[in-house]
């Protein structure tokens, strides 16, 4: 009995101490954040920049929920951010440091802060949506249709959104797979990644009718609309998503440019949207879809290209027409594709990629 009181007494004293400390020690008074020199928000200081920006409906990319483990929430802090912290140094190189880049989640607002966020990130908003349809495309990829509530979204073909994992502060980035002309629904392709938090959620828990939250659009991987170059698109797995959005966009414009789409997969069961892409191919002479299997199984009866997708691509793109490349897939695939493309004379500034 006495133990009970003693332990509770100790706990009580500790809680009181903590409460007192919080009351008297953690006060920073009124602080303000000035954004790009024109907008100013004021708030009681003490929290980090990322949270304040989110509270004021400015959504910059961030995946880890403020733990300094993803390194996405970089922005320029012009004044008032204090010194760079060791937790940030891992993500911010020397050049970025000189420019004043910081991780927003690590900058604690204790006085007036001035920041700069590039215009293209300010377009991001927070959306609520209902899952209108969710189904398997392959054995490990699901397509999720989201019906956005009360709003519309404007994005460029190829950009991504950040999907909030319900019940956590974490976000995961997924490219939009649907056409930008459809502003009230989105389609996402989500692969089941072993050990992945969000992909497991989407595959095992998420159901039709569920309400989800996402922010976006983000990203500088999008179709350069003003250009007239031929397009080489190389992708694998979920890398289909942004390319599909680009193809849909071009389809609506009547496929004005020549497009080669190389899609890499291991076996036939990893291929999807084949019928849809073949139809597109039949409709437009300008568009060519070339799937390549790296390890076709005997049962696949595969008659198409066999090999690593970048080697296959090299066979097709020998001509000297000006080209532009959109790459979306795992890092080794992108690195290999970059080598092939530069060897074939595609200018580095015309190669756009999205590694995941």
């Amino acid at each position: 009995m006495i133990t009970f009181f003693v332990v509770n007494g100790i706990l009580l004293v500790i809680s009181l101490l903590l409460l007192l400390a919080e009351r008297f020690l953690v006060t920073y008074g009124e602080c303000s954040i000035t954004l790009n020199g024109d907008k100013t928000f004021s708030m009681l200081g003490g929290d980090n920049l990322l949270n304040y920006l989110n509270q004021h409906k400015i959504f910059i990319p961030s995946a880890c929920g403020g733990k300094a483990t993803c390194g996405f929430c970089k922005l320029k802090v012009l004044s008032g951010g204090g010194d760079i912290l060791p937790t940030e140094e891992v993500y911010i190189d020397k050049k970025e440091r000189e420019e004043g880049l910081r991780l927003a989640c690590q900058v604690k607002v204790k006085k007036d802060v001035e920041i700069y966020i590039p215009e293209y990130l300010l377009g991001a908003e927070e959306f609520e949506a209902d899952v209108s349809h969710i189904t398997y495309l392959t054995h490990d990829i699901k397509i999720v249709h989201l019906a956005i509530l009360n709003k519309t979204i404007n994005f460029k073909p190829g950009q991504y959104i950040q999907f909030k994992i319900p019940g956590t502060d974490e976000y995961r980035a997924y490219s939009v797979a649907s056409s930008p002309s459809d502003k009230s629904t989105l389609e996402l392709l989500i692969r089941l990644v072993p050990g992945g938090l969000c992909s497991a959620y989407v595959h095992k828990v998420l159901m039709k009718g569920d309400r989800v939250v996402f922010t976006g659009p983000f990203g500088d991987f999008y179709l350069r609309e003003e250009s007239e170059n031929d397009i080489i698109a190389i992708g694998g797995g979920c890398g289909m998503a942004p390319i599909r959005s680009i193809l849909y966009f071009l389809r609506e414009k009547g496929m004005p440019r020549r497009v080669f789409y190389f899609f890499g997969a291991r076996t036939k069961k990893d291929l999807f949207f084949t019928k849809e892409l073949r139809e597109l191919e039949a409709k437009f002479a300008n568009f060519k879809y070339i799937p390549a299997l790296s390890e076709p199984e005997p049962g696949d009866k595969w008659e198409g290209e066999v090999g690593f997708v970048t080697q296959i691509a090299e066979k097709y793109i020998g001509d000297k027409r000006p080209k532009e490349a959109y790459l979306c897939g795992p890092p080794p695939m992108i690195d290999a594709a970059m080598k092939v493309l530069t060897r074939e004379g595609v200018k580095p500034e015309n190669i756009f990629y999205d590694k995941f």
Partner: protein
Amino acid sequence: MELHPFVIFIAAIFTHNIALSYLLGMCPLLAMSRHSNTAQGMGIAVIFVMTLTAVINWLLYHFILIPTGSQIMAYLVFIIVIASVVQLLEMIIEKFFPRLQSSFGIFLPLITVNCTILAISLFMVLRTYSFWQTVFFAFGSGIGWAVAITIIAAIREKLRMIGDVPNGLKGAGITMVIAGILSLAFMGFSGMVSVQ
């Protein structure tokens, strides 16, 4: 035999290093040893918190828990004391020593649930250390842990510059190997002093 606090101090650093001979605190040892400056910050924070919490826990244990016969709750009390001391410390440092904040304050939250800190409090009970023995034991263990993480970080930095670590071993894998070899190296000290 009553051990002199200084013997315990030396033992805690070399012969009974908390990281390298008990393999405690592996999680921050792996995670924070990527760069030597973060490793040092973490090391200093561990030294500080370890000493402070061991002192507080010793006093609580001997002046409150033992007289009331509540030793059975020691685990709970120790954990909560550690967590709240770290919290308090963080607030105090932020308020009064903003310069320290960036060098080691940010590591404090990482220590809140660190097993090494709790281990020190539990060891001092198990080994029935006196007050001064506890102080030197905790301080020495902190220094021992800081030494271990600093060495590992230095080796990892050097490895990154000149080494060619196989893909499968990158990150935690090679760090474990380094820790293992260091642990063997520290066994060389074992004849120096003995505390058990």
